[in-house]
């Protein structure tokens, strides 16, 4: 499903990539940008988290159609040198920004990252802008990066509710692999969920290693050799076949097996018999101290 999303979204799609401190979603975001550029589509990037050089670093696709709106150097207007401030994140300003460069093909807007905007603009306003972008038609698709551990669950939930697809990335078991949990909402209202293990190569192409997490676990098991506890010892605790048979035949002393039970129930010849006649004095009830009163 990850490959389908990379191939291209329908019009009015909002894709959110959720990441956390343990694994950065920045590389996956770059993969989406790279895929869009490879399809010769114009991409506009609102860069808050990273600088232009850092974003373009490693992108092999032609960056001619990549328009970077730098909100990194001065997002709050402190140095009066800003190209784009965080307070300009509204539909009017964005449409104006996008209209400055005209394209024959529909535009993909990439927001890196939404967390920066959510820290300064109230979540309802951000949601409203995203919804208007979704329905508006100024852009074909919006791809946003969200640091899920930086916001309240409610905020994250509200923003992801607007999205048509949500990809949550987490570190995988092996070095350069990561796990992606994908939720996709189609126009008909059907929701599909999937979990894939993927890795990103140097040129930002994504290789999906396996489809589900179960397949992933099965893959790792045969690779882990069962450590043999009898190996590398200075003494020998291995059993030969005869020794193993004798061990299994051995009856353990205090186990109450069937043979012992029958032997006990049937008294053998010459064994004593015990006759018990209950004595009145024997019937002492601990609970009732007056039991022995002759009343």
């Amino acid at each position: 499903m990850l490959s389908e999303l990379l191939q291209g979204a329908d019009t009015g799609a909002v894709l959110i990539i959720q990441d956390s401190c343990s694994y950065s979603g920045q590389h996956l975001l770059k993969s989406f940008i790279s895929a869009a550029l490879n399809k010769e589509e114009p991409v506009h990037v609102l860069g808050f988290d990273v600088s232009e050089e850092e974003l373009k670093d490693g992108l092999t696709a032609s960056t001619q159609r990549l328009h970077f709106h730098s909100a990194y150097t001065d997002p709050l207007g402190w140095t009066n040198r800003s190209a784009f401030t965080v307070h300009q994140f509204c539909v009017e300003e964005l449409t104006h920004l996008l209209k400055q460069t005209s394209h024959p093909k529909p535009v993909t807007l990439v927001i890196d990252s939404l967390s920066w905007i959510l820290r300064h603009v109230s979540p309802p306003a951000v949601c409203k802008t995203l919804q208007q972008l979704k329905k508006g038609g100024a852009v074909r698709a919006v791809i946003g990066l969200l640091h899920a551990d930086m916001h309240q669950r409610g905020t994250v939930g509200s923003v992801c509710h607007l999205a048509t697809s949500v990809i949550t990335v987490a570190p995988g078991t092996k070095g350069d692999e990561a796990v992606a949990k994908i939720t996709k909402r189609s126009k008909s209202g059907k929701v599909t969920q999937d979990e894939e293990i993927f890795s990103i190569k140097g040129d930002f192409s994504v290789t999906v290693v396996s489809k589900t997490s179960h397949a992933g676990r099965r893959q790792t098991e045969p690779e882990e050799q069962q450590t043999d506890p009898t190996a590398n010892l200075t003494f020998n605790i291995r059993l030969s076949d005869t020794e193993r048979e004798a061990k299994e035949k051995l009856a353990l002393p205090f186990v109450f097996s069937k043979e012992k039970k029958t032997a006990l129930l049937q008294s053998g010849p010459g064994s004593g018999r015990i006759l018990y006649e209950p004595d009145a004095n024997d019937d002492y009830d601990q609970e009732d101290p007056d039991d022995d009163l002759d009343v």
Partner: protein
Amino acid sequence: MFTELNSILNATPDSITQGEFILVSDRQSDASFLIHHFLSFYLRARCKVCFLGLVQSFSHYSAISQRLGVSLTQAREKGQLIFLEGLKESLSILIPQETTTGSQAMDFLRDPTVGLQRLYEFVRSSVSSDGGGEEGLEEWGPPVLLVDDVSVLLSLGVSAGAALDFSHYCRATVCSQLQGNIVMLVRCHGEEAEDDGSDEGSEWLLKGLTHQCSLTLHVQGLPTGYCRDIHGQVEVCWRRRRGDGQHTQKKLFQYKVHDKGASFFAPGTSSAVL
């Protein structure tokens, strides 16, 4: 500077990686020994250092750096080190006198809700090289910003969001524009809570700074408790990698702080144990 830490981080005073944002953090421990390491390391690498010492006086750092072989007074006189003594400056703001002409860097103490723009402007003027300076000034290397520590700003009333904005601006200026480095210390107390992010405390600030940085050094006590020979563990995590090696790389070391340095070793290989 600690030679073992240099080999772990693949850095020598002659060849430093530029544009790095190093985040030093601790939880119920004291990671300030790493700040002393980075201070002496970058001074030895002949970088222009701007040090925001918000928690200790200048003489404190000077005494420790003396033991590590670097003279802070000399560096300050030569113009290599610009030291903001937070404690002294804050006195001049809290008890204003007519004769005081301090910088406006600590202005956030007057009104913490204003944010740290003035502090950022102080940093920017310190690290940007003076174009027409006096003759005889030595040429220093790339600028380095050291902050000790960021979490004390939270105790002074500054919001964690403002602290994150400050570190973002510093990163944009020092790391990206001037290709220098930043080292910031964040201190957390208490257990790692699974909070929603609603409580914007030091944990939230740590997460925010972790997203921004390229290298983290997290110092903690040993999970098994107090040990006389091993003072704790350091988890080194490389986050952003250029080119190949997209994945984050983590390494765990144990350390012991000595009088004139600190030694780092792989877990279980302390000299006391082997």
